[in-house]
C-alpha cells in the first residue's frame, strides 16, 4: 500500500519536470542477471521509479523517459546489470528551477 502511495507521489512530482525525450533508452538492463536477482534494488532505490518488475513476465520494465540522471541505480545494482549511459546530446531531463 505504502508503495502505491509513494508511486503516486513520485508521479505527481515527475509531472513538474520538463524532459526532452530521447528516441532510445540510455538505460539497458541485462534481464538474465535481473531474473537471478533477489533484491531487485533498482525497483526500490530509484527516486523516479524508473524500474518496475513485471511479475507476469518476471522482467524489469525500464521507463527511461522518467530518469533524473542521478546514477543511483548503477551503483546500487547488486548484480551490476545496468548499463547506464547519458541520454543523447541535449536529451533527457531539463531542470529549470533547481
Amino acid at each position, binding site marked *: 500500500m*505504502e508503495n502505491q502511495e*509513494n508511486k503516486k*507521489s*513520485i508521479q*505527481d*512530482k*515527475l509531472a*513538474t*519536470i520538463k524532459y*526532452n525525450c530521447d528516441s532510445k533508452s540510455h538505460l539497458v538492463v541485462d534481464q538474465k542477471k535481473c531474473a537471478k536477482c533477489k*533484491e531487485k*534494488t533498482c525497483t*526500490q*532505490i*530509484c*527516486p*523516479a*521509479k524508473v524500474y518496475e518488475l513485471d511479475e507476469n513476465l518476471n522482467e524489469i520494465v525500464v521507463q527511461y523517459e522518467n530518469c*533524473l*540522471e*542521478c*546514477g*543511483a541505480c*548503477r*551503483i*546500487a545494482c547488486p548484480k551490476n546489470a545496468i548499463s*547506464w*549511459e*547519458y*541520454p*543523447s*546530446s*541535449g536529451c*533527457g*531531463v*531539463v*531542470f*529549470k*528551477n*533547481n
Partner: protein
Amino acid sequence: MDIKFNADVIVVGAGPSGVAAALSVARVGKKVILVERAQYPGSKNMYGGAVYTTALKEVFGEDFDKFKYERVINTHTWSFLNETGSFEMTYKNNEATCAYAIKRFQLESQMIEIVKKHGVYYIPNTLVKNLIQENGSVVGIQTEQEKYYAPITILADGVNSLLAKELNLRNDYQTKDMILSVKEAIKLDKKTIEERFNLKDDLSNGVNKQYFGSDFGKLKQYKNLFMMTFLYTFKDTLMLGVGVNLADLSRNKLNINEILDEVKLHPDIAPLVKNGQTIEYSAHLIPEGGYKKIPKLTSNGVIIAGDAAGFVNGVHFEGTNFALISGKLAGESALVALENNDYSQNTLSIYMKKLEKSFILKDLYSYRNVIENLYSRSDSLSKYYPKKIKELFEIITCANCVSKSKQIREYFFSYFKDRKITELFKDIFAASKCALDVFFGK
C-alpha cells in the same frame, strides 16, 4: 599520425569546475573548447542551493560583481528533529555575503556568458562518447557528432564521470560512498517567505536550515538511517531536500521520496512549506567517499576536477567551492604543461601539488574519517541524541513541579542506563576521533 589540434585544452562539462577550468586557460589567450551535454546551461545540474562567493570571486575576479542572485544566504540554523518538535540553533550575520542562492539555470547561464566573453569556445548540446587516445595519452574527445583534438583534456563531467571510469582512473563507487539527494523546489510568494523566515525584503538575507534526526513519523521504524535534511530560501521558492546514504537506503529497502514526503509532514517543517506549490523535483548523487576514494587525478593528457574527482565536504555542505577552485587549479596546471610542451602525467602532476597547497586536499584529508565515523554511529545521531535533547529541554521548560536536582540527576544517569554502556563509549570515541582529526588536520 600527426594530430591537428583544434584547441589547446578541451574541457568536458560546463558546471562550476569546467567553467572555472576553461576560464583560467582562456584568460592567458590559449584556445579552449568547453563541451556540455545539456542543451541549456545548468539544466542537468542540481545542488542544495548555495554557491560560495569566496570561490566565485577567486575564479571570476572583476566579473564577480555581474552575478545576479536570488538571496544572500547569511542565516544558518542547525536543528535536531524529534517526534513532536525540535531543538534549533541559529547563527545570523546580517552583513555576511559568503553564499548566494542562485538557481542552477541562472548560475551556469551567467558563468557561461562571462567565459564566452573571455574567449572560451562553448559547445552545448554535445555528448562526449569517448576519449581519443594515442600512444597512451588522451588527445581528444569523440562526441556523437564529431572529433575534437587537444593536447590536454580536463574532465569536469560530474559525479558519474563515465570518462574517468573509461580511463580506469577510478574504481566503481560503492553504495556507502554515495549520498542520494532529492529536493523539491516549492513556490510561495516572496512576501510569505520573508514573513515565515523573518527576512528583509531586499533579498540581502536568506536562510539555510539543516536538520538532523530520523526519529519521527514513519521513519522511526528504520534503523541506521542517517539523513540530512536541508532547506534554502530563494526569492519566491524554497528548496527542501534530503540526502541519505545509498547503502542505508538499500539496506532499509526505502525509497528516498518516501523520506522527503515524511519530512514535509514534520510539525516544524510542514508550516514552513504550507500552501507551497512544488514546481520541480530533482535528484543527484553526492560523492562522500572523501580522501580515501579520490581517483587518480591526472594521466597523460588528462586532468580530473570537481565532483568527477569526488571533491566535496559533505559535513559542511561544501561542493561548489571545491568544484570552482579545483577547476581553476586544473586549468592552471594545463597551462604549465602547455608552456613546457609536455602533457605527460609527470608534468600534469603539478595539479596534485596545487591541490595539496589549497584547502581542497587539506580539508579532504582532515575530514577523511569523519563521515565514516558519523555513519558508524548513525542510530546514536539520528535517534538517541535527538531524544535525549528533547528529555533535557522537557526538564528545563516544563515546570512539572518535580525537584530539578532529582530530574537532572536522573537525566545524567540515564545516559549510562538507557543503552549498553559500551554504546556511550563508542559515541565518545567516535566524536573525539572526528574532533582530533580535524583539530590536528592539515
